[in-house]
């Protein structure tokens, strides 16, 4: 390995004093166990309805808008309605996510849909979230063949579909779901995990907050209540 690497690690070890193999084993065990620290009470011990309510309240507080629909069949109409109400063109780029295939898009014939990676001229993106985190009203989107990261940032309006069964209380619960779903057998994390809390913003000109800096100016979350008792959470 490089001389710089050896020297930096050497200086660190000299400063810290000698370690031992036993200590290394204990540290490896700590990594494997990934213990939790103190967790805020606000998002713990909530039932599903309370988690959804907290998630929605904090997402709105972060300048997102939230709509709730009863089932996947209602999503296309909700998307079309949202766009119409804001005079936005009914043309969307949608990720190829299989979750979105559950929605009957032909039921909203006004909506022009392209599936794929967002391009510079796509004004509206529709994506599906892996999870919602009630503690801060945050969406968790992960990259993969069906969920390009670009779509979370290029379009001016981002619409995210989330099954309510996928809303967890705290970040630690989201990590556990992620590890179970995507890291089993020692697989590396997906390339990109986006935790999104509200639309893009900046306060860099004269300390005045403006939405829509480089990412989306609007973030709209469509929550799907679902009637399957949480089976849709498995992904």
């Amino acid at each position, binding site marked *: 390995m490089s001389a710089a690497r050896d020297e930096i690690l050497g200086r660190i070890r000299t400063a810290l004093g000698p370690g031992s193999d036993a200590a290394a084993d204990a540290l490896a065990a700590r990594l494997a166990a990934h213990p939790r620290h103190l967790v805020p009470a606000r998002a713990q011990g909530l039932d599903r309805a309370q988690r959804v309510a907290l998630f929605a309240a904090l997402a709105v507080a972060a300048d997102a808008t939230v709509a709730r629909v009863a089932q996947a069949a209602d999503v296309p109409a909700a998307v079309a309605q949202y766009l119409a109400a804001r005079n936005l063109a009914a043309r969307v780029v949608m990720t190829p996510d299989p979750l979105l295939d559950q929605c009957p898009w032909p039921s909203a014939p006004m909506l022009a849909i392209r599936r794929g990676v967002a391009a510079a001229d796509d004004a509206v993106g529709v994506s599906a979230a892996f999870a919602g985190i009630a503690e801060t009203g945050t969406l968790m989107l992960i990259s*993969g063949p069906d969920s390009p*990261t670009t779509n979370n940032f290029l379009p001016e309006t981002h619409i995210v579909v989330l099954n309510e069964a996928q809303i967890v209380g705290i970040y630690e619960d989201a990590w556990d779901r992620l590890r179970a779903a995507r890291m089993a057998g020692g697989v590396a994390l997906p390339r990109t995990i986006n935790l999104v809390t509200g639309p893009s913003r900046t306060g860099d000109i004269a300390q005045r907050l403006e939405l829509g800096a480089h990412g989306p100016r609007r973030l709209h979350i469509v929550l799907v209540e679902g009637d399957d008792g949480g089976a849709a959470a498995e992904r």
Partner: protein
Amino acid sequence: MQPSSRDFKANAHRALGDATLQGALGFMMREGFAVRRAEAVARLPEFEALREAAKRLKDEVLQHLDFYLETFERNVERAGGAVHWCRTAAEAREAVLTICRDAGARIVTKGKSMVGEEIAINEALEANGIAPVETDLGEYIIQIRHEPPSHIVAPAVHLAKEQVAESFRATHRALDPARPLDQPRQMLDEARAILREKFLDADVGITGANFLVAETGSSIIVTNEGNGDLTQTLPKVHIVLASIEKVVPTLEDATLLLRLLARSATGQEFSTYTTISTGTRRDGDPDGPAAYHVVLVDNGRSALLGSVFQDMLRCIRCAACLNHCPVYGAVGGHAYGWVYPGPMGAVLTPALIGVGEAASLPEASTFCGRCESVCPVKIPLPRLMRHWRERAFAARLPPATQRWGLGAWVFLARRPALYRPLAAAAARLLGACGRGRGRFRALPLAGGWTDKRDLPAPAGRSFMSLWAERQKRRA
């Protein structure tokens, strides 16, 4: 960046006379970050307990820094990335340049990175024919103005909107000169359109890292604009600039610090975008970078381990200490003369560029202690500044008059039998002279004080003599 920290006094003097700067700083201190932080802290009852837990976590990480860095490296490589260890700023610049050259880069987009400022990466890229484009709006504004950042979270906080508009007109020559630019919204839309082109054209994207996660080999960035995400998603190559103390063991550990970071920095519950990046795009991924490089920078940090300054390595760069500092609030960030201003800069700068260069910075404190009281990882900033003052004194860096004055005081203070009668005599004398109005408008040798405000006259008796009398009465 050539440091001008030696000129702190002159810099500060100039800053105090700059009405535009004073307007921006006044607004920030009255209505800005500190107020929103207080509101966010009030919403989270566990905040104090989280601070203590974060301090313990960072101490634990520093105790095993070698193990976590090696684990981090292994996991970066497992995910298809590479780690480049760099002892110095020069090595870090060379590592970045080599990656950019190998990628045939002409345009490099950049997310905000204080390590990038520290190693002066933009100058190095420009000197080699590569165009760096800052994409954080604040960083973009100061880049086109050829200024350094004045704040580690809000780099353009010192500017009024008129100054930004003027710079946009001077730089964006292709646009209609008559366009209105009096609202921040108009300037934001203009910058958004211009930088959008750059995002799409860039060959390499450089971001910083708020945290590195050993368990997963990931880097984490926290932004509000989304520029860091476009920077790292669209080009073929993603370079992460990170210093060695940014590593944490697990996602749970990063979570603890994330719960404190945004609340301490901007008073948000959570920043808009927290992004965890691991390695390269995977088979079948339709986007993301094909190469992922972590340039891991020491640049003086390993020398702080095991020293009295080790606590400084806990810093997570939230800027709460700047936002609560009466000195920063009065003179702004540029007066500090290098990359890191405010109390954290007063401790870190001497460590990185030498106390000889930066001895004035730890002097720029009233030791009011607000910085330590708001620090999310409980760094004893006043104590660390005091340590630098001691070193500067030992190295005979302060002016001779100051050293002699202090030396004389030390001589007396160590000899109570001499000190007490002298202090009592001085108090009697000043008390008698000031009896009329109870304060002095001018006093020999104290012009630095009395030029700006009156000096209250002493009561005429020293504390020690009052105390002795009181004890006698009680007995």
